[in-house]
Every structure is written in structure tokens, then in C-alpha cells.
């Protein structure tokens, strides 16, 4: 399990450094698959049907369906790269390390009620969430924002897998379904944005303002 968590952290750092959208999609897909495998290893001894179902569905969705949807969106919009994000790539990676330290700090504040989790689990999950939020805020392309949302959901999913196992895999499946529909709808929205504006640069979506232009 520790290896998967380290992989999660590494993929986040890689994501912060990448500018090419297709690379980012592949990294997020790899993260999703790793988390699907994590679902198998955190169940109680002896795999239950629910754990296997959850793992399969999440690997399918995050490893195959989402990358396909998003790649099609890139092809339609004909964007390859993120255009000069608000925070540069080098600064993003450095900030990523700071966020990782922050996640560790956060973990030390909240005492884990049970001690049979690897000490890396809560910081890794929080780090993923923070990286997801950072991507949403600092990237301009609408597709990068969707990827940030997916990363954030990955982090929350990881946290839920490790700490809320007893909640039942039904809720896990419900969450996956919701994320799937959300990404689907966002993909459609991006398609419309591209068709309407001929770009998917959200910094230029600024027609609605409060005071006179």
C-alpha cells in the first residue's frame, strides 16, 4: 500500500510539471488505476464482492472511459498545450513540495483515530486534494480545470478508501457514478465552449461582470 501512496505523490508532482494536455490525461488515468488497485488491498482480509466491484468499476472508468472522453475533447478543441498558466511550471513543482509539507503538517494536527494505516496515507490523500485544487485555480484551459477536479476526486477517493471502509462500497460506487456523469457533462460543456468561442481558455470567459466594462 505504501508503494501506491508514493506513486500517488509522484504522479501529482509530475502533473504539476507537465504542460502537454495529453500527458496530463495519461498521468491522471494512471493515478486512477493505481487507486483502483488500492481498493483491492484495503478491504478486510478476504476480498468481498463489493471491493472487487468497486475496484473494477473505478479502473474501467478512470483508466479507460475518462481518458477517452477527455482525449476526444482535446482533439475537438485542437489544443495540445496549456497556454502560460498563472503559476509557471517550475514554481508549481516547488509549490507542490511546499503543499506536501503542508499536508504532513495538517496530518499531525488531526490525530488518526486508528493506527493500522500507513503513516503516509492521510498526507498523500490531502496532498492530492491540494494539488487538484491548485490545478483548478492556476490553469487556464478548461480541460486542465476538469483534470484538476478529477485529481481532487482521486484524493478524496483515496482518503475514503483508507479511512471509511465500513461505509460500504455502495457509496463508493455512487461516488464513481457521480464523477462519471460530472466529467461527461463537463466534456459536453467544453465541446460547446470550443464551438462557441473557438478556444477553451477560461481566462477569456469574462463577459459577465458586475461593474461597467
Amino acid at each position: 500500500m505504501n508503494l501506491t501512496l508514493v506513486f500517488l505523490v509522484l504522479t501529482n508532482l509530475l502533473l504539476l510539471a507537465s504542460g502537454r494536455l495529453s500527458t496530463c490525461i495519461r498521468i491522471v488515468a494512471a493515478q486512477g488505476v493505481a487507486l483502483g488497485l488500492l481498493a483491492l488491498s484495503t478491504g478486510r482480509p478476504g476480498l468481498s464482492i463489493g471491493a472487487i466491484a468497486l475496484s473494477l468499476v473505478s479502473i474501467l472508468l478512470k483508466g479507460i472511459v475518462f481518458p477517452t472522453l477527455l482525449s476526444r475533447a482535446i482533439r475537438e478543441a485542437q489544443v495540445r498545450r496549456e497556454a502560460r498558466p498563472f503559476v509557471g511550471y517550475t514554481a508549481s513543482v516547488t509549490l507542490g513540495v511546499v503543499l506536501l509539507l503542508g499536508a504532513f503538517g495538517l496530518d499531525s494536527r488531526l490525530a488518526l483515530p486508528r493506527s493500522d494505516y500507513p503513516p503516509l496515507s492521510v498526507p498523500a490523500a490531502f496532498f492530492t486534494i491540494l494539488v487538484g485544487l491548485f490545478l483548478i485555480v492556476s490553469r487556464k484551459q478548461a480541460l486542465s480545470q476538469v483534470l484538476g477536479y478529477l485529481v481532487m476526486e482521486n484524493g478524496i477517493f483515496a482518503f475514503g478508501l483508507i479511512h471509511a471502509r465500513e461505509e460500504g462500497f455502495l457509496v463508493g460506487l455512487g461516488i464513481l457514478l457521480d464523477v462519471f456523469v460530472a466529467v461527461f457533462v463537463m466534456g459536453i460543456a467544453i465541446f460547446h465552449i470550443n464551438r462557441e468561442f473557438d478556444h477553451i481558455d477560461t481566462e477569456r470567459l469574462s463577459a459577465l461582470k458586475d461593474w461597467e466594462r
Partner: protein
Amino acid sequence: MIAPPETMAAALVLVPAVAGAAAFVIRRHSARRGLLIAGALVHALLTADVCLRGGDPGSSGWLVLDATARLFLGITSALFLTAAVYALGYLRREPPDERHDFQEDVLFSNAPEAVLTGCLLLFLATMSLVVLSRNLGLLWVAIEATTLVSAPMIYFHRHHRSLEATWKYLLICSVGIAVALLGNFCLAVAAAKAGQGSSSLGLDPLVRNASHLNVPWLKAAFIFLLVGYGTKMGLAPLHTWLPDAHSEAPSVVSALLSGALLNCAFVGILRAQQVLAAAGEAAFGQGLLLILGLLSIGLAGVFILGQTDFKRTLAYSSVEHIGILALGVGLGGAGAFGSMLHAVNHSLAKGMLFLLAGNILAEYRTKSTAHVRGVPGALPVTGVLWGAGFLAICGLPPFGLFTSELTILKAALDQGRTGVAVAYLALLALVFVGLTTTFLGMLQGRTTTPGAGRSRRESVLEFAPPMALGALVLAMGVYVPPALSATLHEVARTLGGF
């Protein structure tokens, strides 16, 4: 009593859901619109039966029919029925092909009508699921579902402004709801520590074992849930999507978004506060809600001053009233009672105002307050109702909002929180000034429509729904039925502070 509680609750969700799915495949406009009205009527009848039964704690399955559920279900259903009737007239009036945009010289068309009708019914189904959920995990799924089915409705008029509003709405609300999911997991961790073995998110187990919940994790869970559902509800500073989405959507949709959806997100926070109160930590939640409430009223007031778009003004007014709701619950006790009453009154009044705004927009072809003058001249009934709505939303007697806002003020003074009371009054005054300049300007002056001078006949479907809502608000100001009062009291008691 038509059927046992489990079946009733399930029907309340399934009937609109099935109707919504069917609406997507029906081809004839008249059949689809009939289905919309039928779905709304059936839902209203079921709701009336459930509410009049009263006091039934409901089943032990996934759905519950406690006081909170009944109250918000009633509000939602009533508002949806009137909105559905209005939508009938609206859909008949909308031209089927491309037309010129009001604000810019572009051509745009509407989405297929089936999308709007189907999404409206699905919206009703998901909102019912939110208020009826017995399990906080299910509540989360339902709120996410409301975001997803309401997005296509905001993008009904297919032009770039509404697309921008839809994108902001989708992204910000999805992120907020993801944070709420984290809150749910923290809550599960807090419950696991209780040592009962199961860390389920069912409301009843949580409330029952509340005293054993791990407090730091519970508090963390509440913060995440507040931030997450607060984004959906429109609490400042997370409200940035609200003015755009509520002003670019068709007026019918705006009425439902402001009047019903914000309440549903509020239910999420109320459930969290319920658990917190059962654990004895009510003061923690109340403090946060107080601060966010005052902040919302203040920010809304600042943005209402000098606002040039009347639909955006109504949207910011929603933010203000959401702030009042949060403030009431933040005070607790009588304040919570006032807040619940305010939820009823605000939904009715705001729904009415948005429907009227739709009429004005259709007639004047502009959303700018500078260009709308003398509404009663062009649209007599709408004009009168618009004036009444203005009085209602500002909190003037004899309308219901006066009673609820006064109750909250009294609660603040009774608790000795004069600072809060003074701030509350000052901010309300600020909002009043802003709203007055907007509304009175529109009501007075020489009528300036494209066909100035003549007043056309308004169809019944245009003015009857807002009139009904206005009458209800007026009635609530004069007399609150004891059954309703008892329900409000019951809800307030679960929130702590008594």
C-alpha cells in the same frame, strides 16, 4: 393516508424521475407539457398528503419524513407547481428558431424543449431526494445530481454568456461538493472512533451515538460540509457563481434555483448541524454560520448598490437572504425558528419575483434597469405584483418576510448580542437602499417599451403563478398556521440552542 410512508417517500422521488426520463423521448410538445404539469400535480398531491399527516417519523430505509424533510419538501413542491404552470405559458411563447439576442447583436437558438422539460422534472426528483435522504452519503449523491441536471437548464438559451455562466456553475459547485464529500468521509472517521463498529453515515445512528463521536474529526467534518454545501447554497465568499447562473438562466429556472435549490443545499448544512447539536457541539457550528451569514448579507448589500441588471439584483438578493437564513441558525433557539420561517417566505417571494422578471424581460427585451421604466404602464398586473414583490423582499409588513426577519432580530437581542443585531440592521438597511433604487426606478416613469404606450393583454399563465405566490407570502405575514408553526419549532429544536 394513501400508502405506507416508505412507498410515499419513494413515490415522491420516483414519479418525477420517471416523468423526466419520459419527457426526453416524447416528441409532441403538448404531450410533454402536459406531462410536466401532471408530474408537478402528482408530486404536490403526494406532498400535501405527507405534510398533513404530520408527526410520522417515517420508515427506516433510505428515506425519511421528519420535520425538516416535510418542511422543505412542501416549499419545493409548491414552488415547482407554480413554476410548472408558468413554464407552460413560457414554452408556448418561446420562438422555435433562431432570434436576436437582446444584449448583443448575435443570433442564438434555444436548446430542444425536451431538454428543459425533462431536466425540470429530474430536478424535482433529485431535490426531493435531497430533502428526504436519511443517509448523509445519499444526500451528497443527490446534491451532486441536482448540479448535473440543472446545468443544461442554465444553458437553455444557447449563447456565450449563458455558456460562461454554466461553466462557472458546473466547476465551482462540483469542487464545492467534492469538498463536502471529504466532509462526509471525516464524519465516517469520527463515527468509526465511536467504537460502535459501523461507521455508517445514516442520520439516526449518528444522532443516537452523537455523544461518542470523535470531536476533532466531527468539527473538521462540519467545516468541510459547511464549505462544500455552502458553495452550493451561495454563502459568501463562495457565492461567485450565483449571480451569473441565476441571471443567465431562463426566469422559470432562476425561480427554482433561487427558491428551491438553495434551500436543498441548506438542508445539507442543517443535517450536519443536527449531528453537531446532538453531540453537544452546537455552539461551534453556530459561530461559523453566524459569521458567514453576516458576511453574505454584507457582500450582497455592497454588490446590490449600483447594480444595473435587475436579474442580477435578484440573484444578489438571494445571497442576502441566504445570509439571513445562516444567521438565524447561527443564533439558535428562536433565531432558528425565524430562519425556518424565513426559508418558506423567501422561497415564495423570490420565486414570484423571478417569474415576474421573466415577464418584464420578454416585454422590454432588456435586462438593464436603466432602460426599464414604468412597468405598470406596459404590464399592469405584473407591475402591481412587482411592486408588491419589492415590498415583500425588503421585509416590509404585512408580508411574511417581515415576521421572520423580526423574529431573528429579536432572538439576537434576547441573547444579548447587540453587536450582531446592529450589524444585521445596518446591512439590511444597505440592501434596502440598493433595492429601492432599482425597483422604484423600474416602477415609475414613462413607459419605455419597444411598443410604448399600449399595454398588451397578459395571459393568465403569465400572472397567475406569481400572484398565487404573492398571496401566499401575504397570508404568511398575517397568519402562520399552527401545524406549520409546530413543524418549524420541531426543526429548530433539532438544531440546538434551546
